[in-house]
Each structure stands twice: as structure tokens, then as C-alpha cells.
């Protein structure tokens, strides 16, 4: 018998992993199991993956499309309605102004960015017009500070999460305007605890860890005290990974001090079992962002504080495999940031696992 991962999950667990590191075939099977589950959530009647309210967001559909297109099986439209119909759904949600969103649901930047990223990933010339319109809209969500906001009604002050998401999509959609990326760089510098490169006066008092947080002066993970006992926004894993990837997408090189500092934080605080600094909050967002950031930084092995070394792709894949449900999906019991939704978590996890699989395959050669 041939083919698919569920067999392995179900029947051949006994043939489990080698003593060192996760077996490549098991990673591949887990990626197949995740993709199969996601595809099974596609409903021909609605044309989308999943049936929850959250699943109606075009951004979630775009994310699912993208991770399937990045999968080792290279899913594309000719393979079935589970690819063509969500794309049609996304295109149907595109507004006059180019945004891809449902009126009144908010998250305009996220939705447009993730939907755009999905369309761009398919590399189908049929979507060229929709892509350029969405791109034009996204640029209007870039605030004067260089960060991207939630979109309408949130013109003031960007945040790193919207910024990273928008930058990734713009880059994938072929955005070339250097000013967009320069402005974004200036914003990301202001959310990193790195005295040398953060221009803000308040930031000069930080512990200088290299980690990043949500907005200038604000973390979603609470505060830390600096040496003088002054409270300071607490950096955490998902945002530091977003900062690292955002820097690289905006044109910084690996030896830039900002990049080096972010890498230093992610290495010193490396965790495959939680979003460091934020516990299980945003765990799947973190693994997805971290895999993308480390891949972009061309990092393979990282040195831990205790002198040991870890292959991050191996560590992430091991944890993702351990957390995958028998049916193939992932879900976070910590519900913050919509991670109680299995379609969203599975898309994030699959996005990370696709990268881990590529990395581990390359390392084996």
C-alpha cells in the first residue's frame, strides 16, 4: 500500500523515531496528515475550509491556501475544488478599495495581507489584478510611524504583528518600493529591546536583551524590570521572530546589529514547547513565525546557553508531531489570539512543519 500519512500515525507508531532526531519520513507523514485534515475541512457548499465563524475570515482561508501551496505535495488549483473554491471565496470578498475582508468584521490588514499572501503563493497570472489592488490597499494601512495598523479606524500607530504580516505579503506579491520597507524598518527598530538601534528615549533604559514586543513601549506579555527596577515592555518569542523576519524581508543583512540582537534573544530564549515570554499564548503563531524567521536568516543549528546545540527544525518538528491530534489537526488549549480554532492552528503548524521538513531534508543530504 502506498502514500499517506494517516496510515503511519495509526498503524506504524511502533516503528517510531531513531534515537537521535526526528525521522524525516515521520515529519513528511505528519505534514500529510495535517494537510489531509485541512482538506477534509473543506466544504463544497460554503467553498471554504472549516465551519466556524472565524473560518469565514478571508485571511484564514488565504493562510490555509498558502500553507497547502508550500506543502511538499505542492497543492495547486488543478488538484481540486478545495483549492479553487477558497480562492474564489477570497476574490469575492475583495472590496472596491482592494481590501479583502468582510465588512464590519475588522482585522482589515490581517485579512487582506493573509489573503493576498495566499493568492501570491499560487503564482497564477489569473490573480494579477486582484493582487495589485490588494497591495495598493495594504499600503494605505502603513502608518506614519512605518508600522502597519489594523486598517480602517486604526490609522494611528502600527503594531509589529500587523507589520510583519503585511510585509510578508507585500514581499510575496512583488512589492518593490524601497520607501515602504525603509519605513517599516524604522518601526521595527522601535519595538526591539536593543539600545544600540532603538532610537526611542524610553527604550534606552531597557535590559538590552535583543527581544521584541508588540508596539513601541507596549508588550502583550506584560513587563520586565530593568536593572534599576523600572518596568519595561517584556519581549516575547512570537514578536521577536516577527521582528527578525521583518528585518530580513525589509532588506537588512545577517550581520546587521538589529538582526544579530534578535537572533541572540531567540537563541538564548529558544523554546519549542512554548512561546517564550508568553507561555502558551500564541504558541502556533510563534512556531510558524520562528520557522519562517530562522529559514530567512539561514540558521540551521543554534547554540544554547549551556553549551549544547540544537537543530531548531528538529526540535520544532518533534514538538509539532507530539502535539498533532490523531485526526491530523492541531489546536491550542490556550485560546488567546483565536488559537482555539483548529483550522487556524493547523494552518500555522503546517506552515512551520513544511519549513522544518525542507530543512531536515536538506540537512540529511
Amino acid at each position, binding site marked *: 500500500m502506498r502514500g499517506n500519512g494517516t496510515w503511519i500515525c495509526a498503524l506504524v507508531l511502533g516503528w517510531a523515531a531513531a534515537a537521535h532526531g526526528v525521522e524525516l519520513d515521520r515529519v513528511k507523514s505528519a505534514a500529510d496528515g495535517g494537510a*489531509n485534515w485541512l482538506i477534509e475541512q473543506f466544504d463544497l457548499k460554503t467553498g471554504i475550509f472549516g465551519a466556524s465563524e472565524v473560518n469565514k475570515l478571508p485571511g484564514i482561508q488565504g493562510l490555509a491556501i498558502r500553507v497547502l501551496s508550500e506543502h511538499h505535495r505542492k497543492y495547486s488549483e488543478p488538484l481540486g475544488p478545495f483549492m479553487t473554491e477558497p480562492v474564489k471565496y477570497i476574490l469575492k470578498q475583495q472590496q472596491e478599495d482592494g481590501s479583502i475582508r468582510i465588512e464590519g468584521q475588522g482585522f482589515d490588514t490581517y485579512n487582506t495581507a493573509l489573503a493576498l499572501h495566499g493568492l501570491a503563493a499560487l503564482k497564477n497570472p489569473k490573480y494579477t489584478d486582484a493582487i495589485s489592488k490588494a497591495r495598493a490597499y495594504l499600503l494605505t494601512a502603513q502608518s506614519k510611524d512605518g508600522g502597519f495598523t489594523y486598517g480602517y479606524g486604526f490609522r494611528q500607530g502600527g503594531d509589529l504583528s500587523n507589520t510583519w504580516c503585511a510585509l510578508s505579503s507585500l514581499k510575496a506579491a512583488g512589492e518593490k518600493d524601497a520607501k515602504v520597507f525603509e519605513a517599516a524598518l524604522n518601526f521595527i527598530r522601535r519595538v526591539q529591546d536593543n539600545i544600540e538601534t532603538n532610537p526611542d528615549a524610553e527604550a534606552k533604559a531597557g535590559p538590552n536583551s535583543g527581544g521584541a514586543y508588540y508596539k513601541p513601549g507596549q508588550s502583550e506579555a506584560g513587563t520586565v524590570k530593568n536593572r534599576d527596577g523600572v518596568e519595561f515592555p517584556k519581549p516575547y518569542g512570537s514578536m521577536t521572530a516577527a521582528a527578525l523576519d521583518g528585518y530580513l524581508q525589509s532588506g537588512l543583512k545577517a550581520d546587521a546589529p538589529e538582526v544579530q540582537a534578535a537572533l541572540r534573544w531567540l537563541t538564548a530564549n529558544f523554546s519549542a514547547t512554548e512561546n517564550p515570554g508568553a507561555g502558551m499564548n500564541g504558541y502556533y503563531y510563534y512556531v510558524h513565525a520562528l520557522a519562517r524567521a530562522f529559514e530567512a536568516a539561514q540558521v540551521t543549528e543554534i547554540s544554547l546557553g549551556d553549551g549544547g546545540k540544537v537543530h531548531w527544525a528538529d526540535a520544532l518538528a518533534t514538538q509539532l508531531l507530539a502535539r498533532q491530534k490523531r485526526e491530523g489537526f492541531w489546536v491550542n488549549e490556550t485560546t488567546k489570539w483565536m488559537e482555539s480554532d483548529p483550522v487556524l492552528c493547523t494552518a500555522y503548524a503546517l506552515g512551520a512543519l513544511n519549513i522544518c521538513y525542507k530543512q531536515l531534508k536538506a540537512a540529511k543530504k
Partner: protein
Amino acid sequence: MRMGQQAWGWSLALALAVGSLTAGEEAPAAPPAQPDAAAVANAAAEKAVKYFLSQANGDGTFGKSMAAKSPGVVGLVVYGLAKAPGKRSPELQAALDKAAGYLVALQQENGAIAVPGHGLENYMTSVAVMALKALNDPKYDAVLAKAKPYILSSQLTAAQGYNKDEHYMAYGGFGYGGGKRADLSNTTFSLDALKALGMDENSEEFKNALVFVRRTQDNTETNDVPAMKEGNNSGGFLYFPGTGEFGTEKNRAGKDVPKPYGNMTYAGIKCLIYCGAKPDSPELQAAWRWIKEHYDVTQNPGGKGSEGYYYYLVAFAKAFTAAKVNEIDLGDGKKAAWAKDLALQVAKLQKPDGSWANEAERWWESDPTLATAYALIALDYAAANLAGGK
């Protein structure tokens, strides 16, 4: 492992000659007689049957691996045992009845004969249908009738939202049952089962399947899929349009294109025939051209090492049987009698206890229950062909 038929003949001749000389006798003047392939096939099959009887667990399953509990593996064993040459012993009949009961008990509400949630439902069901049908006992008719619509539901057509033009990599093919993807491997098992249930090329289902099968062939003349227009026009087949399982090769323009290989090409030939393609059709002509260039009983040509070898043997034997071909012309005056070649090679790989196992783990062929089931099925077909030739 890679020794071809002629080399085998030579080494046998050499062994006999050396043996004779060592014994201090004169070397035989005439070349040694070829071993009787029919006798070899029958003996190897008999040993395999004994092996399975020794592995019967009492609950209808065979062997000790985790995969041995799978209805797909049990089904393949039953199919192999049911078609084995020679008279069926009471002990074998009892084991078959038990195993059939195991399969029947696994039938689900929707008709699938599978373990819910374990995946591969369509493979399992198709194999179980072939197995139960091979027992030729009307008491399984109701189970078979219930399984048929399940298998048909795995075909990706308009009812599932698939459109011939838009979804050209899947339309008409059969999938795993849940994953909503189609491939030639699931398709070949499904068509086998449906044909056993009496369906044929005149049905809409087989006509739709033909659309898919043709699109998996590296044959620009008959393949309308854009991604398949750049191949080497070799006539070989892939897993599904645009994708193989053994990587790529260069086309004449130096571009990487998916590489056709043996198990899918033999599966493709059988499917084409089941779907009504005539021997002189451009599809079958092209496929046989590929086979002539890649004829091999020692490995899955175009594959990697011994990966999928036992699956390959089954596809090989079934394709020649469906085509009613006993011998093929390899060119340069060379001819190959597939059943003889297969029987001699497979018998050589049999372990003393009657089993086979693949060194390569891929597709679970390192599991002796699965590999032995495949080898026995291949031998059954070879033995039937050799017996018919007498």
C-alpha cells in the same frame, strides 16, 4: 538483485557446470534444461501458503506486525491465498473463512471496509472487495453490494465538485476516500474492485476514470494536461498528472520533469485496458514502448533501489494478464516470457520459511506479511499464466 534473466540462466549453467566438474565428471555437452517455471511458481506459492497458515493468529489476521491488523493487509493475504494454485486444503479454507469474517466485521455504515480514522479507507475497501469476491461465495454478496457505492464515492467527479477542465490533476481519479486527492494507485485498486463487481468500460464511472488515467501518462499525443506537455513522451505513467514518486528527470530542453516508473506504468496499462482502450490505441502503444525499454523483473524500473518492489510485481503480473500477453518482444531478437521470468526471480528471493520482505521500508514493504501477500499474488498470476500455456 539486479541480475537479469539471462545472467540468471548463465549463473545456473555455471553452477551446474562447476558442480559437475567438482564431482569429477565430464561437463554436460548440451546446455542445462531451464528449470520448469510452472513447477517453481507452484512450489513457491505452496510455501507461501504454508507460511501464512503458520502465521494465522486465530482472529482472521496473519503475522505479528501492527500493519497485519489492517484490513488492507488481511485483504491482500486473502486475495493471494484464494487465488493460489492447487487444491485448497480444509485448513486453508478454514483460515480464509476466518479472515473473510474479520473483513466483513469491519464494514462500516457507509460501506467502507476499514478501521475508521486510520486513513486509506478506499485502498482497504477495494482490497477487501477483491478478497471477498475471490472467495466466490454468495454469502458475501450483501457486503460487496454495500461496499460498491463507497468505492464509487472515492471517485472525484462532479458530485464532489470536481470539474474536468479546472481540476485536471484529479478529475475522474479515485482517492483515499477522505483526502479529496486522486492518484493512479488508488485508481488501479478501485478499478480492480469495481471490475470484480461487474462494472466495465461502458459505465460513466470507467469513462471518467479513463480521463484521469490518460492524464497520468507521459504521452503528449493523448494527454491534454499542460503540465504533461513537456515530458519526454516516453509512454510511462506517473502517480497523478504532473507528479511522480521518484523525482524528476531532464527533458530534451534540460528542464526537470517528473520521471515515469514501472509500478505506475503497469498500473496504467491495466487501467487503460479496463477502461476499454484497444491494443492499437496510441495510449497502449506508447505504454508498451516504455515497457519494452524498461522490462525488468528484478526491480521497479525508474524507481529507487528495491522501494515498492513487491507492489511492482503485482502491477506487472496484472497488466500482462489483463493484456492477455504471454511474451513480449524486447527487440534485437530478444523475447521475454513475463510469467517465467517473474516466477524464477520471485522464488529466488523467497526466504526459507516461505516469506518475503523488502529491505526498503518504503510503503511498509519491509513488513513480511505485506511483502509475502504481494509476492503470492504475483506468483498466483504467473502460475495461472504458465498453467494456461501448457
